[in-house]
C-alpha cells in the first residue's frame, strides 16, 4: 500500500505540482515551437513520453553500474547526452522498421528530442533526488505525461488564438508566452497539494 502511495505522490508531483514546463522551465523550445497544431502536439508529446521513460531507465543504469563504480562521475554530462542521442537514433530506426504507421506519426519529432532539455533534465534530476530504479523510470514517464498535458492544453488554446484579435506586435511567440504565463499561474494553485 505504501508503494502505491509513493507512486501516486510521484505522479501528482511530476505532472501537476512540479510540472516540467510550467514550474521547472524544462522543454520550453518544443512547448512553444510545436504547439501550433493539436495533432502535431500529440505526436510530439507521445514521442517525449517514450524517450523520457527510456532515457530515465538507461541513464540510471549507466550512472549506478558504470559511472559510480568506476569513479567517473565527472563524465556524467557527456555520458548522459550521448546515451540520449543514441537512444533517440535507435528508437527511430526500430520504429521505422517495425511500425511504419507509428513512425509516420512520430518520425519528424524524434530528432528534435535530443536537444529537448526536459529529457536530459529528468535524467539528471533522478540522480540528484537519489531515486531508486523504479522511481526513476516512473518519474521519467510521469514527467513526460506532464509535458504532454500542458503541450496539448497550449495547442488547444493556440488553435483558437489564431482567430482572436491580438495586437499585431504581440502575434505569435509573444502572446504564446503570455498564455504560458497564465497557465503557470493556474498551475501555481497546485502547489498547495502536499501528499
Amino acid at each position: 500500500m505504501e508503494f502505491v502511495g509513493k507512486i501516486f505522490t510521484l505522479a501528482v508531483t511530476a505532472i501537476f505540482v512540479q510540472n516540467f514546463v510550467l514550474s521547472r522551465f524544462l522543454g520550453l523550445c518544443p512547448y512553444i515551437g510545436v504547439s501550433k497544431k493539436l495533432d502535431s502536439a500529440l505526436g510530439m508529446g507521445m514521442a517525449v513520453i517514450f524517450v523520457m521513460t527510456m532515457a530515465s531507465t538507461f541513464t540510471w543504469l549507466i550512472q549506478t553500474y558504470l559511472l559510480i563504480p568506476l569513479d567517473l562521475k565527472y563524465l556524467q554530462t557527456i555520458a548522459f547526452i550521448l546515451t540520449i542521442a543514441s537512444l533517440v537514433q535507435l528508437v527511430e530506426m526500430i520504429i521505422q522498421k517495425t511500425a511504419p504507421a507509428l513512425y509516420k506519426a512520430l518520425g519528424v519529432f524524434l530528432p528534435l528530442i535530443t536537444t529537448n532539455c526536459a529529457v536530459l533534465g529528468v535524467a539528471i534530476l533522478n540522480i540528484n533526488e537519489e531515486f531508486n530504479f523504479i522511481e526513476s523510470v516512473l518519474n521519467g514517464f510521469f514527467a513526460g505525461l506532464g509535458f504532454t498535458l500542458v503541450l496539448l492544453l497550449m495547442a488547444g488554446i493556440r488553435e483558437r488564438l489564431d482567430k482572436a484579435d491580438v495586437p499585431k506586435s504581440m502575434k505569435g511567440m509573444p502572446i504564446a508566452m503570455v498564455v504560458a504565463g497564465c497557465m503557470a499561474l493556474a498551475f501555481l494553485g497546485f502547489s498547495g497539494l502536499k501528499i
Partner: protein
Amino acid sequence: MKLTQEFTKGFIKENPVFVMALGLCPTLAVTTSVENAIGMGLAATFVLLFSNIFISLIKKIIPDKIRIPSYIVVIASFVTIVDMVMNAYFPAIHKNLGLFIPLIVVNCIILGRAEAFANKNTVIRSIVDGLGMGLGFTLALIVIGGIREILGVGQFLGHNVLPVSYKPVIVAILAPGAFLVMGVLMGLMNMKKTK
C-alpha cells in the same frame, strides 16, 4: 560582413533570446535575480566561445556523417569544465544555477552556432561570433533578470532601488512572472521592428 558587425549582431539584430527565441529554458529559469543572470550568461558565453573555436579548428577532420555527435562531445566537455570550475571557485552561484549548468549542453544557441556558423567560418570569425552571441545572451538575461528582480523584490543586484513603501510583486520572480515578462519584452521587440 565586417568583424565589428559580426560582433554586435548578437546584441540586438540577431539577439539569440528575443529575436531567435533560442535557449528559452535557462533564460526563464535562472533570471530570478541579476546575479544569477550574469553567472548563467558568462558560463554559456565561455562554452559558446570555446566550442566555436574548437569546432572551427576541427571542422576539416570531422566527416560530415558524425558531425553532430562530435559537436555534442566537444560541447559537453566544455560544459563539464565550466561545471567543475564554478563548483570549485564560485560555489554559491553554482548552487543557485544548479541543474541548469549541465543543461547548457542542450542549449540550442550553442549547437545552433556550431552548426550554422563555426562549421563554415574561420577561427577568428568564430571567436568574434561566439563572444558576440554569448554577450547578447547575457545581455538578454540581465534585462529579464533586472526587471524581475526590481518588480519582485524591489532590488537590483541585491541593493534596494525602490522606496521601502514599495510592496514587491512576488509573482514576478515566480514561474508565471518569467513567462509574462518574456512575452511583453518580445512584443516590444516586434513593435520596434515593424515600425
